[in-house]
C-alpha cells in the first residue's frame, strides 16, 4: 500500500502470522484493535460470530450456527460448499470457557482425529493479542486437517483443489 498515492484513508491492518510449532501444532496470531472483552464477545455470541467466521472468499454458505458457550456445551456449524451436494457439519464441545481470556474446544467431525483448539485473548494496551493454538493427535492428522498433504506428483493445478479443501477444513470454529 502506498499511502502517498492513496486518496482513501486506510486503517492500519494488523498482520496475521501462522507458525507450525511442532509436527502436531499450528499457531495463528493476530492483534485486534479492541480490548479482550469485546473480542471475546465476537467469538462467543452466535449472531456476531457468524458475521465474521466465514468470509465470502471461502466460497461457503453458513446454513446454521449454534454456540452453547459453557464448559461441556456444544457448538454446531452447518455449511454448504458448491463442490459438495450435502451440507457439511462441524461440531465439538467447549472444554474451557474463561471470559474474556480463554476458550478451549474440541473438533469432533473427524472422529478421534480432530484437533483441540485453544484461543487466548491477551490484553495489550487496549488491544487484544489473539493466539489460536491447534493441537492435533498426530502429524498426519495435522497435514490432512489443514490441507498440507501432497506428494511428488502434486501439480500446480491440483493446488487449487487442495486450497478448496483447505477452505472447507477451516470452516470450523
Amino acid at each position, binding site marked *: 500500500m502506498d499511502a502517498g498515492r492513496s486518496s482513501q484513508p486506510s486503517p492500519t491492518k494488523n498482520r496475521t502470522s501462522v507458525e*507450525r510449532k511442532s509436527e502436531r501444532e499450528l499457531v495463528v496470531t*493476530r492483534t485486534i484493535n479492541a480490548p479482550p472483552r*469485546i473480542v471475546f464477545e465476537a467469538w462467543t455470541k452466535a449472531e456476531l460470530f457468524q458475521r465474521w467466521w466465514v468470509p465470502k*472468499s471461502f466460497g461457503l454458505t453458513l446454513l446454521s450456527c449454534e454456540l452453547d458457550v459453557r464448559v461441556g456445551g456444544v457448538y454446531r456449524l452447518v455449511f454448504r460448499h458448491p463442490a459438495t451436494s450435502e451440507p457439511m457439519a462441524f461440531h465439538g464441545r467447549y472444554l474451557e470457557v474463561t471470559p474474556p481470556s480463554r476458550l478451549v474446544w474440541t473438533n469432533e467431525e473427524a472422529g478421534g482425529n480432530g484437533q483441540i483448539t485453544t484461543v487466548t485473548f491477551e490484553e495489550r494496551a487496549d488491544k487484544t493479542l489473539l493466539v489460536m493454538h491447534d493441537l492435533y493427535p498426530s502429524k498426519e492428522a495435522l497435514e490432512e486437517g*489443514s490441507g*498440507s498433504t501432497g506428494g*511428488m506428483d502434486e501439480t500446480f493445478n491440483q493446488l487449487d483443489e487442495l486450497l478448496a479443501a483447505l477452505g472447507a477444513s477451516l470452516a470450523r470454529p
Partner: protein
Amino acid sequence: MVQYIGTHLDTSFAALSDVTRRGVLEQLGRADASITDLAEKFCMTLTGMKKHVGVLEQAGLVTTEKVGRVRTCKLGLRRLEEEAMWIERYRQLWDARFDELDKVVEDLKRKERVDGRRKK
C-alpha cells in the same frame, strides 16, 4: 513467493533435463532402490549414478538415507516448499477471517461509545 517457486522450478527442470535422471525417477516411482541397484539397472558406474542422484536430491525430487552400507533412494516430497506454500495459504485464509472480525469489533466499539454517551 513467486520468485521462490520460480527458482525451485528451474532446479527441477534442470534435474529433469537428463534422460537417465528421468529414468531414475520413474524407477523410484515404482519402488525405492539403492544406488547400487540403480547403477546396475542403468548400466552405469557407481560414481556416475551417485552424481545423478545428487542432482535429483538437490532439486528435492529424491531423498536418500544411508542405513549401514546401503544408501537407499526414494522420491522426495519437496516438503519444505510445499509446507511454505500451504502455510502461506492457511495464513491468507485466517487473514480474511480476521479482517471480517475487525469489522464486527469496530461495530461493537461504536455501539459501546453510543451507549456510553446515552448513559451520561
